[in-house]
């Protein structure tokens, strides 16, 4: 089974990165690049390992196949893993995003930054996302979930001298910690109904009110990380306070992992034979949360004058669309969510890298400070304009298809509630133009201001590669959707 292999490589890579940091401590500006090279190599090796072994997993239906157990299978505390297509797709998305963030970090970190911990935490983050993706029981799942959150707090707080960063990290820590508590209670309730800690036990929860309550609590608990309204309040602060590479990683994939955790909960219900019977209460809760999340995300975005906060609100809105698709409890909805995680991750992490060209202070990413930056540097302008178009779902970028998939999942569900939810989704996408186009209007078309520090080619190359990948997905969606079935 390759999952444990992957985790060993990634974990070992983290240790090696710390070691490399120690060895290279007198290398000055080369130090981050050296440590980064070691860490990126670990991602590359794990990527190769995954691709070389994923054929049987991709060939099998979503669900129980390829479950395996570590250590004493008879023990109640045995760890159960179950990788399927969805897990593999999640791993792929996170490897691409975090791998790109690492490359971007090579030159972004200064000699005074703690390069070792930065790269090691990124690897641990990736390692725990791999664990979250493939966990088969609640105990294993929870362990990796907490590890992931810890790595994320650490990354946000790492640059201690950065204004606002420690406060934001604390906020993140407290909120996500309380979220974990909610999720834990949810797990307990589901266990009470189903009598098993296996994730598949969720399918028995629909039978009772306590079970449904457990499901709702799971969604709320993971929903803190996923920024489900009203538990989203930490997100804009964290995104805007985190340094560029970290914002790109957290905004690109960690928030999405929160949504993926909800996918894990919904998956046995969606792919199971029982259908959505007895779950209308759960579905109604999801529909309400979806509506509130997309609407508040977009309306909040309209009121922002800071690019990184704006991108944060847009992430909240995206979570709303994904929840809408999930509320159908159907395989179509899950595929729509997975494809959105991929497409949104590429664009959003690239966008944060663009914003990170100069984000030493909070004010530097105010739209008023960025005015005309894309006119001073045409390449930057093109990247900004493409990212905006991608984010509002214009072809030929990948997120265009995600919107179609979400709407399709809703309309295929065939009831009036979901029809109106689809109407809400498409209107919300239009609403997002209201805050995204001013970004073009000001950053790309604003008055030139000579003397501004120019983005280096390297700073543009990494987001450029992400945009190119998004473009490729937009032109040849089958290449990636094929992995999902």
């Amino acid at each position: 089974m390759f999952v444990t292999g992957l985790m060993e490589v990634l974990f070992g890579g983290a240790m090696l990165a710390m070691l490399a940091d120690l060895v290279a401590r007198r290398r000055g500006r080369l130090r981050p690049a050296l440590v980064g090279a070691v860490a990126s190599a670990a991602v590359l090796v794990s990527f190769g390992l995954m691709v070389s072994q994923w054929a049987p997993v991709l060939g099998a239906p979503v669900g129980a196949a390829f479950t395996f157990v570590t250590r004493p299978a008879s023990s109640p505390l045995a760890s159960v893993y179950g990788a399927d297509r969805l897990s593999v797709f999640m791993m792929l998305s996170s490897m691409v995003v975090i791998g790109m963030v690492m490359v971007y970090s090579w030159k972004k970190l200064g000699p005074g930054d703690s390069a070792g911990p930065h790269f090691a935490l990124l690897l641990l983050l990736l390692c725990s996302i791999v664990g979250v993706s493939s966990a088969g029981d609640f105990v294993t799942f929870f362990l990796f979930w907490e590890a992931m959150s810890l790595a994320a707090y650490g990354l946000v707080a790492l640059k201690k001298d950065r204004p606002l960063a420690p406060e934001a990290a604390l906020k993140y820590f407290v909120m996500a910690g309380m979220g974990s508590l909610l999720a834990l209670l949810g797990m307990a309730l589901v266990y009470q109904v189903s009598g098993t800690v296996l994730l598949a036990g969720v399918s028995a929860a629909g039978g009772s009110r306590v079970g449904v309550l457990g499901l709702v609590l799971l969604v709320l608990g993971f929903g803190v990380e996923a920024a489900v309204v009203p538990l989203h309040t930490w997100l804009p602060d964290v995104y805007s306070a985190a340094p560029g590479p970290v914002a790109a990683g957290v905004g690109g994939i960690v928030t999405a992992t929160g949504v993926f955790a909800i996918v894990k909960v919904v998956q046995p219900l969606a792919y199971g034979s029982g259908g959505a019977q007895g779950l209308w209460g759960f579905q109604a809760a999801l529909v309400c949360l979806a509506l509130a999340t997309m609407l508040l995300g977009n309306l909040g975005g309209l009121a922002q004058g800071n690019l990184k906060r704006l991108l944060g609100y847009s992430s909240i809105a995206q979570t709303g669309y994904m929840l809408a698709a999930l509320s159908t409890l159907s395989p179509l909805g899950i595929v729509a969510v997975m494809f959105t995680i991929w497409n949104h991750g590429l664009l959003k992490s690239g966008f944060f890298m663009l914003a990170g060209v100069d984000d030493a202070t909070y004010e530097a990413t105010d739209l008023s400070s960025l005015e005309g930056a894309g006119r001073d540097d045409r390449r930057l302008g093109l990247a900004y304009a493409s990212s905006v178009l991608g984010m509002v779902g214009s072809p030929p970028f990948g997120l265009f298809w995600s919107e179609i998939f979400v709407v399709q999942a809703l309309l295929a569900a065939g009831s009036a509630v979901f029809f109106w939810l689809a109407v809400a989704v498409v209107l919300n996408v239009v609403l997002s133009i209201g805050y995204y186009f001013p970004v073009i209007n000001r950053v790309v078309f604003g008055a030139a201001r000579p003397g501004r520090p120019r983005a280096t080619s390297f700073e543009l190359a990494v987001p450029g590669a992400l945009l190119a990948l998004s473009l490729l997905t937009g032109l040849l969606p089958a290449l990636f959707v094929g992995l999902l079935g």
Partner: protein
Amino acid sequence: MNISGWLVWLVPLVAVPVVPLVSRAWKKATGWFAVGVGGLSLLFALLAALAYTAEGTETYGVWLGYLNLPIEVSVDGLSVLVGVFVAFLSLLILVYSLGYMRGEEGQARYYSLVLLFVGSMLGLVMAGNLIQFYFFWEIVGLCSAFLIAFWSDREKARKAGLKAFAVTRIGDAALILGIILIFATLQTTSFTPVLAAVGGPNLSGSLLTAVGVLVFLGAMAKSAQVPFHVWLPDAMEGPTTVSALIHAATMVNAGVYLVIRMFPLFQASSVLLEMVLFVGLLSSGVGAVCAFTSNDIKRILAYSTISQLGLMFAALGLGSWAAATYHMISQGLFKALAFLAAGSVIAQLETRNIEEMGGLRKVMKVTYVGFLLSVLAMSGLPPLIGFWSKDAIVSIAFSGDLPAAAAILAISLMTAAYGFRALIKVFHGKGAWKKQVHESGPAMTVPIAVLSVSVVLAWLALGGQGYVSLPQLPAELTVSLALSLGALALGAVVSYEAFSARAESTAGLVARSAALRSLRKALLGGLGFDALFGYLYDRGVGGAARLASSVQTGLLDTDSALLLLVLVLAVVMAAAGAL
């Protein structure tokens, strides 16, 4: 396989990334390269038309198996005819751009966007299924927005680009819902099976009406129909070449083209047809009235476009897709001609205000003849192309729907009146300009001349082509023809009297009468649609946004208190449930 049906849109798209390279290697060749690509595209359009033998859809592999979505082009009479029309106009306007855009900064950006537009517009025309159609539909929209904002130092141009994108996207939101509703019902979006299913057990009744309304909302926004029309007059901030190509002749027709493509769907429901007729006549009236007051030559033409597009929808509402197709091509030719002539004037005088023009007929002869022919064609003078297409609509209205016929006649009268008003103010009387004015260069006059000839003669070609059976004038036309020509004459005379023979007393009358002044003000403001939407957006969305951001206190205490509350509530509920 009709390979040209693919190359016609693929060639311009592939050329897009090449433009910046050409520009970097040899700046002066950028425009010529684009012209060459436009020429190739026209060649392939013609070859596709020649190779066309029978209706059919050509499929090339699978685009997205998950959605059961092939890549396909539909090669039928309609698409090859419209394809040739689009490629022909694109080439002419690319040539015209050589003169009009000479010396402008950002040539690479301009030509790559125009080629992206041309390729996507042709892709849209040739698309074999609705999702492919929508893909290109979105791209032409964003090309349009970025070309409107081309002179991005101007705040007005930037705002106009944003507005065009946002307003049309509202319609697109409805369109994509409609398309996916079709897909969710029929598991396909290819035109042939979808249209075959219309009226069958899967697609009828209220579902059919819902799909029709959603699709039509998309068409309305793209084709600038009331109340979505507000973006088009502002879109005139873009270069005149862009106004001619995108906002007069091709992209704004896409909505009409969509309804023509999906016409069996609309025909299946009288509610849908009546809606299309109503919206068309309303927009046509609003456009004509507003065109009469504006002093900006390009806004006059934009309102006129809204009005003419309304007539096409009216034709569709009356049940004749052939008349709508005819008028679509006809309007494309004479309106592109009007814009190119206007652009030639603007390039000389560097103003768009018709009050600052006048007396140009002697110094700019080719331009004058072009604009004159365009106005005559638009007013429906035989045998110019506008006569055939408009009288087809009038005569259909006469044979079925008399109130609609009366409305169309009234609009015809208005059309002649605003057309001649513009002609008189720009080219006749005395010039208010002081600088040296001369005719534009050959890059601009040759396309004007070519379009002038086609406005006079294209009806012969269109009558002789075998792709789409366009309406020939019926024998019992006499009454409608007489009335329609009467409306033309009356409109022309009114404008001549008001703006040439008694220009001063007209101005005095408007100055004296408070009612006329306020009417004029209302019309100049576009009848308040813009103000209303602005108010609604600021109050509604803006207010909601402020409310939403007030939730964000940034205080950890309040945020975590909420979570704690959820937790306590959950424990209580769990305990209650367990007991």
